[in-house]
């Protein structure tokens, strides 16, 4: 029974940890499938986490935070689009610029607005009647079923009691799959990433498609950021994205640029993170595994995958290449 409880707790934590990764990986999918390398995810998450927390605090409403966070993330995505699509700039350089810009701006503005060393004030502050955090959603009968063995654990602990955004992330996976692989829009978007000149010949604007793709990317990355600050910690902390954007990118590659694969990779990375968070390292057959090794495992696995040692990850063909009409 103890093993079961532990398992439920770890899976429960996995969902919580994996949610921002899922959003960000889906965001990356839209961008990369349209041919835009997007390491700017990290900066987008950070910026939206900050904007979300700041707006939620000022308006005392998590929903306004959500709106502001998503909008800021979209603006950053548009900067990326402006540099890479309109001006054919280097995708990685632009992404790096956005990440650094986001790190600097959030710290400087945060300190200027709130004077708390770059943090935003806590979003739950009964003394000042501030309550701008998302509240978990409890399923019906979750409390009464909590004591029922097995079902109680699964239903009340694992399934119920998460933030709305967690359920939204899980729902977003099939929706994004449907958009990407079952609609005309998705077909065009993938074509832009594989063979932009063919799409251009068919009379569809490559620029237009890529801007739309990055807008969707911005919205999804914004959800990831808002989830971190407005839902989980109820506060913005400097550098709180802590590499999640890069990890999502790794998950996306691990999932071979597909929603289901990316979801599974995010869950796997989530489990590793949950285990690392819960324990001071695990042990395998009496041999202690340090907690840092578990933390590093997602990155190591991604490198191994990229090396083509476990399956092959084939990127969209035109990824990272600017599309210049005359040259094709």
């Amino acid at each position, binding site marked *: 029974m103890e093993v079961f409880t532990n398992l439920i707790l770890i899976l429960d934590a996995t969902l919580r940890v994996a949610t921002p990764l899922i959003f960000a990986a889906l965001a990356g999918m839209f961008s990369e499938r349209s041919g835009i390398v997007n390491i700017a995810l990290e900066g987008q998450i950070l910026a939206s986490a900050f904007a979300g927390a700041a707006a939620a605090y000022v308006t005392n409403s998590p929903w306004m935070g959500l709106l502001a966070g998503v909008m800021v993330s979209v603006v950053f995505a548009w900067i990326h689009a402006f540099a890479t699509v309109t001006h054919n700039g280097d995708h*990685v350089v632009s992404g790096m610029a956005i990440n650094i810009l986001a790190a600097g*701006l959030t710290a400087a503005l945060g300190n200027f607005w709130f004077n708390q060393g770059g943090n935003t004030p806590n979003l739950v502050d009964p003394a000042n009647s501030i309550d701008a955090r998302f509240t978990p959603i409890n399923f019906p009968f979750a409390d009464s079923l909590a004591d029922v063995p097995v079902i109680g654990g699964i239903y009340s602990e694992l399934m119920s009691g998460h933030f709305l955004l967690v359920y939204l992330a899980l729902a977003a996976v099939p929706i994004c799959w449907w958009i990407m692989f079952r609609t005309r829009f998705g077909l065009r978007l993938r074509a832009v990433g594989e063979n932009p000149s063919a799409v251009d010949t068919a009379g569809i604007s490559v620029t237009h498609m890529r801007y739309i793709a990055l807008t969707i990317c911005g919205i999804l990355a914004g959800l990831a950021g808002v989830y971190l600050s407005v839902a989980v910690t109820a506060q913005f902390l400097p550098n709180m994205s802590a590499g999640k954007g890069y990890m999502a990118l790794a998950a996306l590659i691990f999932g071979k640029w597909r929603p289901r694969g990316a979801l599974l990779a995010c869950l796997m990375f989530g489990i590793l993170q949950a285990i690392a968070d819960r324990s001071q390292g695990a042990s395998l057959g009496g041999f202690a595994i340090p907690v840092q090794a578990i933390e590093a495992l997602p990155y190591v696995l991604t*490198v191994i995958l*990229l090396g083509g040692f476990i399956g092959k990850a084939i990127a969209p063909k035109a990824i990272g290449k600017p599309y210049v009409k005359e040259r094709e």
Partner: protein
Amino acid sequence: MSQKQIPGWIYVLVIPLANILLAAFVASLVFLYLEINPLDAVSTMFQGAFGDSRSTGYTLYYTTSFIFTGLAVAVAFHCGLFNIGGEGQAYIGALGVGLVCLALGGKVPFLILLPISILAAGVFGALWALIPAWLQATRGSHIVITTIMFNFIASALMGYLLVEVLKPEGTMSVESAVFDQASWIPKIHEVFAIFGIKLKTSPLNLSIVWAILCSVGVYYFIWQTRWGYEIRSTGQNASAAEYAGIPLGKTVILTMLVSGMLAGFFALNVVQGEAHQIKLSLVNGMGFTGIAVALMGRNHPFGIVLASLLFGFLSQGGNELQFEYGVDPRIIVVLQGLVILFSGALENMMKHPIEKIYFKLVANRKTTAVGEA
């Protein structure tokens, strides 16, 4: 409109300058919003960065770090590779330096220890770049992603080593033991004191000499050796280079080894020169700053030294801004981001307008010349 008609100085001088001015303009808008007069801020920063020998020392200390990380990025750029892993390579370089100093410090004379620690910094940094390089060369995995991953692996590895291995027993903070004083790289103010010149204490140390030597070395390597020629050919047109008989895989690996080595040298300045111990996250984003430095310096060692000086000035001056205005010193990071954005990602934005203006000016001059005749 062929590009031949436009003289080189437009590309080397005018366009980069226009990009920097744009970045400065946007940055000054941010400053204005933060209720700081940008001109006052610049003068405050100048005072803070070059006011006396102490502040100049700090500025040059940061400059030294940026020269190493900037050169590392630039060498990779010449081969068409984007080495984002400077952060991790410098961190692992610190491990190399630290191990040498911990093992040999006080046991062998400094003049014997120094070459060993330089070698260790370079070799450790280079080895950390080797696996991404090898994967790129032989298995085609993208170096940007693998070097990002290696940054995280480096920080996990160093975290483990510091907590479990290097931390002396009975201490609370996560850092290695302090090196024996005999292994420290002498500070510039100590060196000057020998000659009777009094400078205020600053972390500036003799690593700066090594940084300048490395800059000259990189210039020689890239433009005067066969390897450099092969690297540049590969960077400009890989398929042409391959057709000409240049082994692409070897060139990629060689480039990344040199790049990682230069990033590793960063540790000489920060670890052996100043901190005298290995600390958690000692690189602190300076590997990423190397990208801005390389972009601004147009990947040329001379440009990189100048750009490093600028970023050294910004880092030290930014600290001064904090005292003066109470702003977050990370405002400088905003500036960094803007420089990368405008002189890197948006470098083409100003190209067409400036080309157009140039053509207009030339055309005007021609018509007046014809009119006079």
